[in-house]
Each structure stands twice: as C-alpha cells, then as structure tokens.
C-alpha cells in the first residue's frame, strides 16, 4: 500500500485517549501524539515522560538580561555618554532608573516567552501531515485524536486498528503522508 503518515483513532472522551495512550506505551509504541480540543491533564507527560520544560528557565534568563539591558541603557545615557546637570540631580539617579529597568525587563521576558513558545512548538509551521486526517477537523472542536506514526518500528495498521476499537474509538483511519 502507499506511503502513510500514521493511523489515528478518534475518541469522544479524553479519558479514552489517555487509557489508549497508556496501553500503547506499555506495548512499546513511542512515535505517537494526541490532538485534543483543550489541554488534557497529564497527557503530555504520559507521551513523553522524560521531556522537561525549558521555557520558564528561558523566560527567567530573559528577565535578567532585560533588566540588565534596561539599566545599562539608562546609565549609558545619563552617566557615561553625556552627563548633564539636570535640575541639580546626580548623574546616576538610580531610583529614577528603576521604572525603565522594570519595564524593559518585563517586555523582554514576555517577548522571550512568545518566541520561545513558538520555537518549542516548532511553529509557525503551516503544514503538518496530521491535517490530512479527515477526522482531524474535529480535533479542535469536540473530538480527541490519538495518532500513531508510521515511523514507529512496531507500526502495524491492523493491530493498532483493533487496539483503538477496543478502547472505544468511534472512528479509526489511516493518514496519508
């Protein structure tokens, strides 16, 4: 038969997906992913137990960098580059620099957050083979889709079809690559 990306089972309850995924992992399946209309508690840990979350750390680093940058810009401006007597205030009026520092910090953090988030999701990526699954259209509405990809060593269509049906998948379909 022709190239396929994988096989999907469509469920109408999040619990079903979770159970199915748990079972498949126990059978040794690794290359699989679940597509749900809203975040399902613990699904990701279930699919990739070893993966750790880097984003918060990235954002924290960004915060530090942003703060440093913000304060430096202001010191450069008022102290190093062109020190001027402004209303008799000292050149390095650090209390006055705090606001700027704070805002720069937050801006950089959020920006890092957004871009980091997209990066870690491999977005933007306008095409993904899973879109070819005709059932996928409802994965963003009210269905829970579990997909085992063809690249999994122990990938075998009929076997998986049976497992999905056992866990109550209302539809099982192959996804063309």
């Amino acid at each position, binding site marked *: 038969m022709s190239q396929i990306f994988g096989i999907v089972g469509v469920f109408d309850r999040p619990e079903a997906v979770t159970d199915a995924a748990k079972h498949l992992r126990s059978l040794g399946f690794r290359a699989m992913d679940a597509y749900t209309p*809203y975040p399902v508690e613990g699904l990701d840990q279930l699919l990739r137990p070893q993966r750790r979350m880097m984003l918060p750390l990235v*954002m924290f680093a960004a915060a530090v960098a942003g703060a440093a940058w913000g304060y430096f810009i202001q010191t450069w*401006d*008022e102290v190093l580059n062109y020190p001027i007597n402004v209303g008799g205030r000292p050149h390095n009026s650090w209390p006055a620099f705090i606001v700027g520092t704070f805002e720069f910090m937050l801006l950089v953090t959020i920006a890092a957050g*957004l871009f980091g988030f997209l990066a870690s999701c491999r*977005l933007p990526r306008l095409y993904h083979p899973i879109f070819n699954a005709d059932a996928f259209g409802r994965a*963003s509405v*009210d269905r829970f889709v579990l997909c085992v990809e063809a690249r999994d060593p122990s990938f075998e269509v009929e076997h998986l079809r049976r497992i999905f049906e056992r866990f109550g998948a209302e539809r099982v379909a192959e996804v063309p690559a």
Partner: protein
Amino acid sequence: MTVLIDLPREAPVVGPGVTLRSLSEEVSNRVLLPNTPRWWWIGFALGMALLLTFVVQLIWLFINGVGIWGINIPVAWGFAIAEYVWWIALASGGTIVSALFFLTRSPWRSATNRIAETMLLSAAPCAGLLPIMHLGRQGLFYWLFPYSSVMGVWPQVRSPLWWDFVCLLCYILMSIMYYYTGLLPDLATVRDLARTRWKQVFYGVLALGWHGSARHWRNQQTVYAVMSAIMAPMVISVHSVVGLDFAGGITPGWHSTQFPPYFFFGAVISGTALIMMLTILVRWGYGLEDVLTGYHLNALAKVMLVGSVMLGYAYVWEAWGPIYGSDVAERTQFFYRIFGFYAACYWGKIVLNIVIPQLLWLPIVRRSEVLLFSISAGIIVGMWLERFVIVIPSLSHGYMPSYWGVFFPTFWDWAALAGTIGLFLSLFFLLLKLVPIVSMSEVREIVAKERSR
C-alpha cells in the same frame, strides 16, 4: 435584553445546554458566517463616523498645531492628557480581568477575558495616540526612544514622561503578545471550521499551524501562566507610572504620594465598567446568554463595587491631605477644586463613581442588565470627569496667584474626544468580526468539568 436574570444560589458558569460542539460553533460562526447582524453594522458605522471626525481633527491639528485646543499657560495640559489617562485606565481594566483573575483561577474569567483583551487592544491605541498628538512638535516624538542618534543626545530618563512612554510602549507590545498566545488555539478552531477558501487561508496563517497536540497544549499552558504572572504586575506598574506623571511634578494637586494606587483603583473600576458594558452588548447581540451567563455579570459587578469602594478611600485621602496638611497652595488648590470654577466636575465624579455604584450591594441590581449597563456607563463618564479634575483645576490654580487662569475646551478638544471614541468603536467592532469573542479552549475545559460533575 432580559430585564431580570434569574440567578440561583450556585449558578452554573455555563448554561446547561452547552456542549463542546455547540460552544465551538456558536462562537466561531459569529466570525465565519457571512450574515452580519444589523446592530453590528450600526455600531461599526457609528465608530467609523466618529473616526472620520478624528481624522479631520488630526489634519487640522497638524496644520495649525496644538494651539487649536483651549490649552494655555498655566493650563498647558488639557483634554489630550486627561483623556489619555482615561483610555489607559480603561485598557488596563482589560488586563486586570484577564491576567489578575487568571492567577486567582476565577472560573468566570474564562468567558469574559477575550472581551476584556479585545477591549484592551482597541483602547490602547487611543491611549497611545493622545500623548503624541498633544506634543508641540508631534513629528519628533521618536526622540523619546533610547537610540543613538546623530545628535549624540539621549532621552532624559529621570522624567516621569519618559517612564510613561516606556511603560505605554511595553504595555501595548506585551498585551498584543499575551493576547496572541491565548488566541492561538481558537484561531485553529476557526481555521478548522472555516468553509470558504480565503477564510481557511486567513485563519490558517494566523493559527501558524497550531494542531493542539499534547505538547502544544503543555507549552501553551505553561507560557500563558507565566505571562499572566508577568502581566499582572505590569498592569499595576503601568497605571502607577501614569500616576507618577502627576505625582512626579510639584504642582499643587498633583504632588501626592497616593497617586499610583489611586490611579490603579480608577483603572480597576473603569476597566471593569467598560467590560461590563461590552459583555452585555455581546451577550445580547450574539445571543450567547448561556456562555456569558448571569454568573459573569454578577462577578464583574462585584469587582466594580470593590473598585468603587477603593476609589472612595482614595478620594477621602485626596481631601484629607490638603485639609490636614500645612501647605497653603495645596489647600487653596483643593478648595478651588471643590468650590471653584470646575466644582461641578468634582461633585460629578463623586456621585458617578462612588455614590451610585453603592447600589451594587443589592443583588437585585446585580441581576438587572439595564441597571448594570447604566451604572457602568455612569462610572465611565465619572472617571472621565475624575481625570479632568486631576489635570485641569490643579494647573489653573498653581503657586503663583498672578498666573492663575482657566481653561475652556474648544470645538477641537471635543473633536479629539469623539475621535478617540470612534477609533475605539471601530477597532472593537472590527475585532468582534475577526476573532472569536469567547475563549473557546478555556470554556471547553469548564464545559468538560461541568459535564464530569
């Protein structure tokens, strides 16, 4: 509009009939279906009409300069600044609801936060434009950016105005990013439900290929949580800094340490009030009664009530300071404020912001859309008066009696006000048409919870 919403003791967050599908379609169809309700056209037309006056006002302003307004010496700041503060307060209200109450995990926030953020994104440009318009040489506003110019001169970062500029800039950028992060999954839903080609492409591109995989969700959840944790202090800082614009000066009536919280309280009440109005509008207009339930209105009303009480506290201090203090200028200034030329504005703000909202103690009031709508409207006017009272009377009665003066708004002052309102309405109605106005992904969770109960 129902006259009285029945509100059982433990009201459901979402109506009983709501299923995942009905929810998605109900919300998405507002964006997808070609037929647009008449009330949208009316609202949008009104917005565009006012926007036109804004454009005319801008052209006249650029040709003649800020002299076309009523401002003078001593009152060098007029409507432009008062309204800037007003708009930024309304905008921050949006963030307060969406970020602050996300952290408190308040369930009612899920359905309203998109309205709140849409409102924020439509109000922020108004807030952003006014300070630039009010410059004597608008074209040179970019001198506020900290960049190395060929003049070798940089901004003066001790100035509260500069803080304010930075805050506003960061705030707008951050709000957009925050908004987008939350919006992404819903864009995907719309993309998947879209039937016409160009809509599929349009939302396909906006959705950046989101496919709700387990990993996507986890990242999105984490980031969104952290972002909220950042936006909350951000919004507080924004309005505190706006307060510092005034507290940073030594002008009697401005030089007050309570301004930062004072202004934040103002933001809470006025922002919530506007969200209330818009929620009622959307609820009624889009027939989303079972998604935006009485539960939400009730919650918003309580927030408004709290805001009003906090604001009342600030007003008391505003009066107590000068009376108890020993500063002649402060005292004359305050008495001028309450008995002088602009007294009406002062008492107006007291009534609209403090007295009337006390009605919200009564559950029956919190259940009547009409009353909620009109009280909110009153608060928004009241907040405008408050900004006016803070900016103008303070300047007109400064330290030098020989230079006391008054400010009369000219036609163009009013045009600027109408214009910014127009800008807001146009943007809001546009977004109403383009983005799902209720956060589907979040409400789905609630629906799921309700169902599993």
